[in-house]
């Protein structure tokens, strides 16, 4: 379970502050996949980073009772001069995971083959995100935070990701942010809409669609 309590966040702008998140409270229950729908620049990614603990909110607090992933779909956090394997081992170590097991799993899942042993700077964007995704699957989080799953790899790899999530439904759940209702329909049981810095939980995905389109 993750609980957000009265989260607010603002960024300084040229004139005054831009309030991105305005007093957001929501409980994400264990075992339920939740989608957050919002337009570009509505604060979805900021919310996800705060849930992950990368950014601190200006006010409010996040309570995490489970192991939460970093925001997936964004392939930052790799060092270009190190190989895929070395980056994998590093991340396994900081999460206190079994290093050889994680390394083997990531090699297998990412389908990078020999590129796994090449510096990450030689990778294409797609390869990077494949590695990032494989790595997050290898570490076994209870909650996966996903930013725009559509960005990850080609069609067969996307199917593979979807299957991987389906397999671990018992153990892990997903919080997905997207501006695309279709993606959320595929992955999530329920949906919330982020409009003007406020998060509203919807009873059904159809209701989310209505609110999203009305805004």
């Amino acid at each position, binding site marked *: 379970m993750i609980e957000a309590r009265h989260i607010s966040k603002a*960024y300084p702008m040229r004139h005054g502050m831009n309030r991105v998140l305005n007093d957001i409270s929501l409980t994400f229950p264990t075992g339920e996949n939740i989608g957050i729908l919002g337009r570009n620049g509505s604060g979805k990614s900021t919310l996800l*980073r705060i849930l*992950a*603990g*990368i*950014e*601190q909110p200006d006010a409010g607090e996040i309570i995490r009772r489970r192991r*939460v992933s*970093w925001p997936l779909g964004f392939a*930052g*956090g*790799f*060092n270009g*001069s*190190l190989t895929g394997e*070395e980056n994998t081992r*590093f*991340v396994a*170590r*900081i*999460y*206190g995971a079994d290093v050889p097991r994680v390394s083997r799993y990531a090699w297998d899942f990412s389908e990078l083959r020999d590129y796994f042993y090449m510096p990450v700077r030689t990778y294409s964007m797609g390869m990077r995100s494949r590695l990032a995704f494989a790595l997050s699957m290898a570490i076994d989080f209870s909650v996966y935070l996903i930013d725009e799953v559509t960005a990850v790899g080609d069609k067969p790899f996307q199917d593979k990701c979807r299957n991987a999530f389906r397999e671990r439904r018992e153990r892990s759940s997903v919080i997905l942010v997207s501006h695309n209702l279709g993606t959320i329909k595929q992955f999530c049981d329920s949906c919330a809409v982020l409009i003007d810095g406020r998060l509203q939980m919807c009873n059904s995905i159809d209701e989310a669609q209505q609110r999203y389109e009305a805004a």
Partner: protein
Amino acid sequence: MSPGTGLQAQLQIIHALVLRESRTRYGAHQLGYIWALLEPLFWVLTFYGIFYFTHRSLHFGMDIVSFITTGIIPYELFRETLGQSLNAIPANKALLFYPQIRPLDLVIARLSLEVVTLMTVFIIIMGAHSLYLGELQIDNLLVLMCGLLLASLLGASLGLFFSALSVYTKVVDRIIPIVSRPLFFVSGLFFTVNELPEQARDLLLWNPVLHCVEMVRDGWFRSYHAVHVDLPYLLSWIVGFTYAGLVLERMARRRLELT
């Protein structure tokens, strides 16, 4: 989470960062680390050449190699820890992407690697030199180790403070090299405090690095007693800048977040 597991997780992260840092800095080969050892060794050799050919005589029965090494290593410890902690955060900003890694971890990891490397160099040079002389004379190991440790802590505390300050103003990055360069000449690499005339001595003793070098020499040489070392003075530098650095890091933390 109990404090025990928290500390363990922290150590795990710092260990991973040290491994990663040594990999990126010294290259993929284990041999790359040798370069880290060779650089200070080269320094010592250069100085040895200068001292030898200018026929400089040393006071207090010191031999050239020990004199140079006891000066260079604490100086380098100070300079490297300062430089490393100054750059630790900008160079590894991408790592703040992982929520459990905080800016301070980056600084600690780099410091540990640097201190271990230079301590190893010190042991190698002095060990080899003692083997060559056929005797190992350490006057006071505790004072020696304290001198080396305090030099590292001094660099680290200044580095911590200025790295946090550089979040606010980029001027820091330009000023530090300008200010730290003269330290090379006034930190006792070429002289001991006891042989200085009183006026010069009073002036140069404002420099905290000189106190560290003096401590190391006091600890190493039986014939040398660093009567002018002012430990409370040195410690107030370290404590003062560590405190200010940690406060400033707290304040700067928000600005460091990935945007």
